[in-house]
């Protein structure tokens, strides 16, 4: 910067300080540059590696980048509506591409639920069920993992390790394992999502518990309450709004997670989407994407609204 212009008028010690500052600045700049160069080098090595081990090469495939948009154009716009609501298609030739009406789930003789709505309901239900199950166990474990409520490190340590393992264990492995034991269906997805949820929520919960005010607990201790009473009447009322907020945040994440797990064999809408993209059924794909997009958006908005009502704006800090 322009400070060197001033240095002629500085005293001897002032010039020393100025020189020091310049040196420090130069060193800092050098480190920043080195760091950026290292980052760029890693990036190029990574890109080269990714390109090299990919099935199609990046520059060969780049012209085809937006091909999938072309794969998504149905024969007419009404096809999407027909696919979404299981209405018979005029193009029906008996193939799977246009058999929209086959998936209807009849409630009465004339009233039916369209297939995709039914599957979407199943996916959302998987998410809600496993979030509730995860909250139940995470709730119990979090008090055992909190330093202020469980001073004994021999209980706290194992509980925390358990939650770490549950959190880091790949969901796809849990789903695959249960898929091998149980038959195809939503239960492997429920197991995978809820086991992951226990670990993730348990961690967030015990951090909330550790930040709780201990005065109510002390008061209850003074009148001779036991551990469960102290937790239930002293801590739970304080942490409940935060817990609810994290529960809703997790619900958003779990709706997405259960869709993905569905695609790898857990049933629900994810599986249908994977199949319809793979087989090139344009109208069906668009119908599912619209439905999925709307659902995820709606769940996000609902949860944001509820969280803002319950805890105010602090619910929107980055949750990890």
């Amino acid at each position: 910067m322009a400070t060197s212009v001033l240095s002629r008028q500085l005293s001897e010690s002032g010039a020393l300080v100025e020189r020091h500052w310049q040196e420090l600045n130069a060193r800092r700049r050098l480190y920043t540059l080195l760091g950026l160069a290292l980052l760029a080098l890693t990036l190029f090595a990574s890109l080269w590696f990714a390109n090299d081990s990919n099935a199609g090469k990046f520059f060969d495939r780049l012209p085809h980048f937006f091909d999938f948009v072309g794969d998504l154009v149905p024969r007419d716009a009404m096809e999407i509506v027909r696919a979404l609501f299981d209405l018979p298609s005029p193009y029906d030739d008996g193939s799977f591409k246009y058999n929209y009406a086959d998936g209807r789930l009849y409630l009465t003789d004339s009233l039916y639920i369209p297939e995709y709505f039914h599957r979407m309901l199943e996916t959302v239900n998987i998410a809600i069920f496993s979030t509730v199950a995860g909250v139940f166990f995470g709730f119990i474990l979090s008090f055992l993992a909190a330093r202020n409520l469980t001073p004994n490190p021999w209980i706290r340590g194992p509980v925390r390790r358990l939650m770490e393992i549950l959190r880091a264990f790949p969901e796809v492995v849990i789903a695959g394992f249960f898929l091998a034991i149980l038959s195809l269906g939503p239960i492997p997805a429920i197991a995978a999502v809820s086991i992951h949820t226990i670990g993730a929520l348990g961690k967030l919960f015990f951090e909330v518990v550790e930040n709780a005010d201990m005065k109510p607990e002390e008061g209850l201790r003074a009148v001779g309450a036991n551990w469960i009473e102290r937790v239930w009447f002293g801590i739970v009322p304080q942490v409940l709004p935060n817990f609810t907020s994290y529960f809703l945040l997790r619900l958003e994440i779990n709706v997405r997670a259960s869709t993905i797990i569905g695609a790898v064999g857990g049933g629900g809408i994810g599986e249908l989407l994977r199949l319809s993209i793979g087989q090139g059924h344009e109208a069906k794909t668009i119908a599912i994407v619209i439905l999925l997009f709307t659902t995820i958006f709606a769940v996000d908005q609902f949860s944001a609204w509820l969280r803002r009502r319950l805890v105010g704006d602090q619910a929107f800090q980055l949750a990890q």
Partner: protein
Amino acid sequence: MTASTKPSLPEMEAIAARHPHLLHSSSRKRFKAALIGIGVLLYMAFSWWFFSIGHVLANANWGIAGTYLADWVSYEVRPEIAIAADGTMAVSYARNSPLGPNPNPDWVTLEKKTVTRTIEAPAAPQASKPKASSSFNFMAPNAALGGSQTAQAQNRIETRNEEVVVRALITYDRSTNIEIADGLVKATHSGETLTMTVDGADTVTPQGPLPRWARQKRPGEKITLSFGLTGWAEVEGDKVSIRNRFFGWANFLFDSNSPFFGKPYGEVVSLIVSGERIDPARSNLSLAWNNILYNAEWQHLDVWTKLLQTIVMAFVGTLFASLIAFPLCFLAARNITPNLFANQLAKRFFDFLRSVDMFIWALFFTRAFGPGPLAGISAIFFTDTGTLGKLYSEALENIDDRQREGVKSVGATPIAVQRFGVLPQVLPVFASQALYFWESNTRSATIIGAVGAGGIGLKLWEAMRTNSDWENVAYMVLLILMVVFVFDSISNACRSRLMGRKPH
């Protein structure tokens, strides 16, 4: 002392009268908790019915779950003992047995005898002919080619010496073993002994009542003996199948085709350091390394490559996402760009990228680029541009305006205002959030890999679908857990330095 602190009865009643809401809350409040609880319970009951959980759990094959779990950390060796009608036996191992092509483990003790057999050479089908000798009958194809007259001429009596097993003792552990001799199978487990008669054809008859660890569905049919974690066995009329389970991962370094297979570690090391070249074309060290990398059962090189792909996917995807989200978030922030249309456009764009979801992007890009990490990178890039853009613009909207005004007041250009008034405040937050997403994407990259977007996910999924490679699944899970743990620590350390607070 106590008398003075304890309020008297009228005093307590006076306190209660002054604060009625503490003792008698409104009925709505009182029942709210109970109603929510009942609602949740009802919902759980409904879901139990909706997913027919009880039915599925009751029909599940829990026995096989134990076997699969045991497969994670152990392996089975499976000798098959064929029993002929005359009580002689032949032992064979599966082709890809973990013990290599010619196993002779010390827990199988065989007593052999050379018998002289008389065989009518061009074998007309004979029901009573022992199974073990039929495979030695190399004359049979000639007989089939020749006419009936030549066959008659060649039909001579041949005697030859064969080595057969007359007694076999399989020791599982100290209290469990199976002894087979003279058409009798004697199994001993935890102090109980069960003797079974096998006839060399299709009937098994237990002598005496069956102990708890033995099971036979119908008289004469096969008997299954389960010895818990040490293994199990199946006794049929003409064969005994042994399944002996050992703890550990079999052939983790060298598979049974490698010249280093089955040698103790000391010998392998001395071979590598000072041994003669096994393959004249290259040194023993490179041969050993090559054998490890291309181990047919564990596929180390492939697994490591796929794991690296997963890491690269998360790294490149997150880096690109934060690079693109960085300029866009200035457009989306209300206080930086006071143009409502631009704000809304940028924010809705972020919402769109986020809500379409990583999984859907992954499916689309797998079609565009073919299966591989490029699809995964693009999927992570698209989703995280949305998420990071949203978080970045929220961070920008919460900045302290005084620094910006200060820089503006000395006449700085708009770019300089952003550079010196805004960036120093938000850069640590931006970097910290990018790091957090890098770490969490390392985890999610595993799962989008399973739908074809590259990385270890697909390999993991394939290993699970075979239902027999659970030890490979365990290996990959262990690697993933290690990588996630290392990246967690790196990202936590970086973030706590950036944000200047204690890591949690």
